[in-house]
């Protein structure tokens, strides 16, 4: 089960999405619908953890 972090938004199709990277190597942010995140877990018991996230450092390194 991957850990997903990102801004929770409603996209232009009125879908609840997480704006997130899909791999560490690709910095592009994609709007990933929550239903896509959950569809392979339907009818399974899952653990969902939701907490607010604060972006602390805008630039890498120092």
């Amino acid at each position, binding site marked *: 089960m991957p*850990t997903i*972090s990102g801004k929770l938004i409603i996209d232009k199709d009125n879908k609840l999405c997480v704006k997130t990277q899909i791999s*560490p*190597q690709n*910095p592009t942010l994609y709007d990933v619908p929550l239903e896509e995140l959950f569809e392979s877990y339907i009818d399974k018991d899952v653990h969902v953890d939701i907490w607010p996230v604060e972006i*602390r450092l*805008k630039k890498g*390194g120092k």
Partner: protein
Amino acid sequence: MGKKKTDTPASAGAKPAAEKGSIRFGVIGCGGRADGLTRTLMSDKRGDLLAICDIDPEQIDHYEKMAKSSLGHGTKHYTDYKDLLDNADIDAVIIATPDQWHHEMAVEAFKKKKHVFLEKPAGTNLDQNQAILKAAKASGKTLEIGYVLRYSPFYQGVRSLVQSGDIGNPLAADALEEYYGAFHFYRGWWKSKGNNGGIMIQKICHDMDLWYWIFGKPRKIVAFESLMNFKPGGWDSKAKTCNECKNHCPYYIPPEGVKASKTKSNECVYNDPHDITDNCNVLVQFESGMTMSQGMNFFNAVTRSDRFIHVVGSTGEISGWLSENMVRYDKRHGNDNDVKYLQFSTTGADGHGGGDQIQILKFLDALVEGREALAGRESAYWSSIIIMGAQMAADQNRVIDVKELTAKYPFPG
């Protein structure tokens, strides 16, 4: 590239190495570690690659192709590192050979007035470490140890949170490294303590360097290590090599894969004799009185190679995994509403949390600006006091008082 000075003071004798576009490097030890460093430095307009040294012609060929592709020119080739160091056109060297040669090569490089980027560890014992530091000071050249985790956004964020007082005074900490690395740790040069000083010096020197950087100087150290799993009986086979094994374990490397592996050897990770242990725990008391434990093992699931840190402070605590690039913050006397996750920036790179690529570029910064590197001589000294003190504590089965080590091995300045 940032131009900010680090918090490390400038070296007394250091002068700018070169103008932009002309820091000329040589690489000694053309293996996997130097590969990424070399690619990154060649991608920066200030870095040039003049010469490479390795005893493996295939590695020379590989690096030569990299240089031609990145720089449009070839390199001079050496099989003896002393010949490379005699090349007066070279300003700086990356030394990324097996650990047992770090000391001799770094000392020689400083004698030849080269700046040195030295893969960790800085020697395999405190005698060697002291010789490297003295040679660096005498040369007036810049030393940087490959403590790449200092440059990862994750650990920079952890340090910032601790040192800014966001969790109050740090009171206690615990950390863990798990690494699915038996593929190479029980094969080739890694398997011998004589080659790398021991598991603490070879493997968790990165971590102990971070804890000096974040929590300060140590006061006392105790440590334990053992070989629990990677020994005869750990897998149902009596073969000494992969080639002869009839019951392949998860670390099996087929004959065609051996050549491409890190060690190019196929010893059985269970049955081939080795004196590197597979787990350890270090307990450090810092000068502040704070204590910290650091664990490490090779037993984790393949999906769990990672590093964890947990710091408890007087007003709050943070915990997190390097791979997730964020920490959970809990307010000490708060409730669920006070819990939040603090995410750090990503670099688009994943080697050591992104630190691999950043460090060599920051080393270039240090050379251009004529100052010490972030993981420079002072870091090499105190980090080595902790890690080599830890190995000593385990080897000698006693508590190490740091005063004993600093009296025998004072910081050369």
